[in-house]
């Protein structure tokens, strides 16, 4: 009985603290409507750093945005002056990115665009940075081979797998697939069972038995022709 009485008594004092505690909640509440759609995952946060300011100062509108996602810094830039931006990133004194870790692409067929992703690392500052830029199918991106020697093969692989064009690349030809292969396998519209059956028949003398194919029919339709042809 006494406990029951204590409980209501205990509850009565609690309401007063609640309003006191409710003073901080209001700020989260306006944020709450935005939060429910993305409670599942982390959200990109804006990244401010002297380097971003320096890029902004030097290249202005070329910088689309700078943000941090799961502790990884990224910047998005326009592709027009990508070579200059990369040279600046390598030579700047704030974080000199002397090592190109990786260069790859992601195909976004809905936007008819390819996202080129450069992963940079600075030995001096132990920092990584991802630089992203977007390009369309027939628009060449400036090669960064003159900035980092590593880019040579990496860009050839991107060209091989996605058909992305690079300007001023010393030797832009296929690297993993045969020279005369038709189609770019890592594009989203290239089915996993797709194969250049004509190539297989010609060079291996077998019918691969694949139902899907890239070949004459596609050639006639104007699809998948190697851009260098």
């Amino acid at each position, binding site marked *: 009985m006494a406990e029951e009485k204590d409980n209501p008594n205990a509850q009565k004092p609690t309401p007063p603290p609640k309003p006191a505690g409710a003073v901080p909640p209001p700020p989260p509440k306006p944020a709450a409507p935005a939060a429910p759609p993305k409670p599942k*995952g*982390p959200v990109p946060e804006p990244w401010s750093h002297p380097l971003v300011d320096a890029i902004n100062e030097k290249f202005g509108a070329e910088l689309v945005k700078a943000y941090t996602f799961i502790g990884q810094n990224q910047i998005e830039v326009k592709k027009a002056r990508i070579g200059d931006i990369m040279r600046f990133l390598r030579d700047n004194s704030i974080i000199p990115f002397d090592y190109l870790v*990786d260069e790859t692409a992601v195909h976004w067929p809905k936007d008819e665009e390819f996202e080129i992703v450069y992963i940079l690392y600075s030995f001096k500052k132990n920092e990584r940075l991802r630089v992203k830029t977007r390009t369309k199918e027939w628009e060449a991106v400036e090669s960064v081979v003159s900035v980092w020697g590593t880019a040579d*093969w990496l860009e050839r692989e991107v060209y091989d797998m996605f058909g992305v064009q690079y300007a001023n690349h010393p030797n832009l030809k296929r*690297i993993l697939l045969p020279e005369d292969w038709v189609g770019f396998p890592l594009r989203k519209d290239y089915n*996993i069972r797709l194969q250049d059956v004509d190539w297989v028949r010609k060079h291996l003398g077998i019918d691969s038995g694949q139902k899907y194919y890239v070949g004459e029919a596609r050639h006639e339709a104007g699809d998948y022709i190697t851009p260098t042809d």
Partner: protein
Amino acid sequence: MSTQETLFDASELTVSMGPQHPSTHGVLQVKLKLDGERVIDAQCVIGYLHRGVEKLGENQTYGQFLPTLDRTDYIAAVSNCLGFCEAVEKLLGVTAPPRAQYIRVILTELNRISSHLLWLGTHALDIGAMTVFLYAFREREEILKIFENYSGARLTTHMFRIGGTQYELYDGFQDQVRAFVKDFPKKVAEYETLLTENRIWINRTRGVGVISAKDAVDMGLTGPPLRASGVQWDLRKAKPYAAYADFEFDIPVGEHGDTYDRYMVRMEEMRQSARIVAQAVEKIPDGPLMAKMSKIIKPPVGDIYHSIEAPKGELGYYIVSDGSTQAYRARVRPPSFVNLQSLRKMVIGHMVADVVAVIGTLDIVLGEIDR
């Protein structure tokens, strides 16, 4: 006046080395342009083993992709597995429990030793030292036995799962590992008596395939080739992952960036790996093996890059997730692929026989280069 040119009139000769050649460690073709026996140009032709691993990664669930990744660098399958598991965990916001972290470190370091042993054996065999091969495989066998006992497989082990490890350690695991790492430094000393001061070995490796630190960084070399050029950089120290922050170990570096230095760096790395394993095996914490997470792995929308120090260099995974059970893009940053690019720079001006030494010293695995 016209003279009929013959093959012997031209000073330049093109020789195709591989793809079927015992010292190219798989199906690598190197087109050599020679002046006498001196190399004036070298072009690598790769892709003979291309299986579209990155495409498969987009068409399999995250869990299904793990066994496929074992088949990229099949000499160091445990490292491949660790890198991808950690990348997905990072994206999910999950951390593997400490016990799993320690098991991961032990098995990955054992795998580093076995990978370096295979490199040592085949590299020495290429240059003409037959005995080392037999010695190295003797110890490698011990490691593979541990792998077989733990996972049931010797090479394509599928060792870990996203979120931790699946299997508990078997009875006697610790004793077996302890016995191995206790003996192992003596075995390394044994290999060294065969090679380190061997006159033929020194003549064949000193000053061969030299690359300066500046060039190595420009060409994106990682792993032992970078350290042999004098850059003291190891991802286990620079950006510690798994439980590496808990252990003491040194990063060996070379001075000259030649084949001999790369040999010395790898020998010391094996000792350091044994040192890490010896520390880890004594203090494996108790606890669960898997982190608490849903059974269906659906990482949030976004992208992540995570890399680890594989035996060959920086092994990175760049994953783009669209929130489904399959990756939208699963990129493998293969160390062998990037390291092989430096071959041309390293062999120009050397003899044909040195090309064999340089291919060996880069420690490439074609399964990883071609994917």
